[in-house]
């Protein structure tokens, strides 16, 4: 495998998740806010798919909890949603890994629909409805960004091991 320096991987995982969290609250110009990709979910899907030994459901749950606090959402909401997609991503990682990147994007899109459904469902139980037409926009934008994520993360993952 490419990982000649396995001790550096957890550091990279944590840093990339933190970066994704910052991106998830970074102010966007104008009317772009509803189209913000689900950065944290994308990064988690990437890591659970690539290194399921390091990032499992536990990591996903903790990340989700932090995300809840960061977005001042109900505690456990994102944690639950991220657990679901982390589980799916781990179960299918051997299968999805061999797909071309655009087919992967479709699988990722399906996972994100599930992720957003869980969040929407929790919001619905709380009685906080949102404008449902734009609600699904992040799924589409995330699918578009998936190839970019794969490319960047591949560079990041190989960078340290090359040294």
């Amino acid at each position, binding site marked *: 495998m490419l990982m000649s320096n396995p001790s550096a991987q957890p550091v990279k995982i944590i840093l990339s998740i933190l970066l994704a*969290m910052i991106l998830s*609250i*970074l*102010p966007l110009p104008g009317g772009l806010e509803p189209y913000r990709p689900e950065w944290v979910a994308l990064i988690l899907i990437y890591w659970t798919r690539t290194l399921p030994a390091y990032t499992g459901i536990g990591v996903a749950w903790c990340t989700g909890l932090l995300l809840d606090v960061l977005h*001042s959402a109900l*505690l*456990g909401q994102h*944690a*639950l949603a991220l657990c679901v997609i982390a589980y799916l991503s781990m179960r299918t990682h051997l299968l999805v890994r061999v797909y071309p990147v655009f087919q992967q994007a479709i699988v990722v899109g399906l996972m994100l629909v599930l992720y957003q459904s869980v969040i929407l469902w929790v919001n619905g139980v709380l009685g906080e409805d949102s*404008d449902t037409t734009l609600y699904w926009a992040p799924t589409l934008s995330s699918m578009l960004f998936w190839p970019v994520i794969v490319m960047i993360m591949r560079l990041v993952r190989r960078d340290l091991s090359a040294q």
Partner: protein
Amino acid sequence: MVISIILMTVDHHTSHLNSTRALLGTALYPLHLLASLPSDSTNWASITFAERRLLLEQNHRLGTRNLLLQEKLLKFSYLQEENSRLRELLDSTRRLPNERVLIAELLAVDLDPFKQRIVINKGTRDGVYIGQPLVDARGLLGQITHITLASATAILITDPSHSLLVQVDRNGQRALAEGTGGSKKLKLLYVPTNADIRLGDVLSTSGLDGRYPSEYPVGKVTNIVRQPGDAFLSIEAQPFGQLDQSREVLLIWINDTGGLLNLEPEVDDPEPVIDDTPQESEHADE
């Protein structure tokens, strides 16, 4: 999964998790700061590299404004004095509350685009508490929902899950103002069809909900629709507070006897009090 469901239930129904949330939130505060860094630095750059002429102009303008407000303040303190004296004569139990304010700055972070929430840079360290009202120079903004050591999250009055009791300044007609979400408008609920309410009526807080101080301007009625067969009017109002523009907001402590600081809200927001004091004094004189 079971843990998260239990967690969500506990968080929704009780307040046991508030301290946990505050702790985690404090730990994550650097992330908020990092996220607001780009827009902060562009702000800083635009101030630093602004032209001297522009700065002088601005300085001059602010100086004039300050003078005008000072003059208003003089009149106001006289009126306040007179008002409290007349109230004493009338043996009225209603007092203008002493309020203390603190200026907080918004952190440039986006939370959920479907929820009307903002993050400010003051927290428990500065004495902020849950439920504390938040205003800007024009009107009411919202109230604090979550606090950490150095930051706090506030829900705006336009959030669909937020409602407050308002009254029409003209006649004291009360109504429940509920947020509508994205459209940045308020909806007035449960106003009977025969109520005296007109376009352009100014709404202010009633103070009856025990959360907000009374007589802070909230908004203006912009649309009234009388649907035949409906027991209530459907009314829309435009909030005065610049919900998505103001960068600095004021936190208010109600019934706090913080002596010196209470000059500030009067400078920023003298209208509602001035508006009704002369009437009071006229009545008393007659």
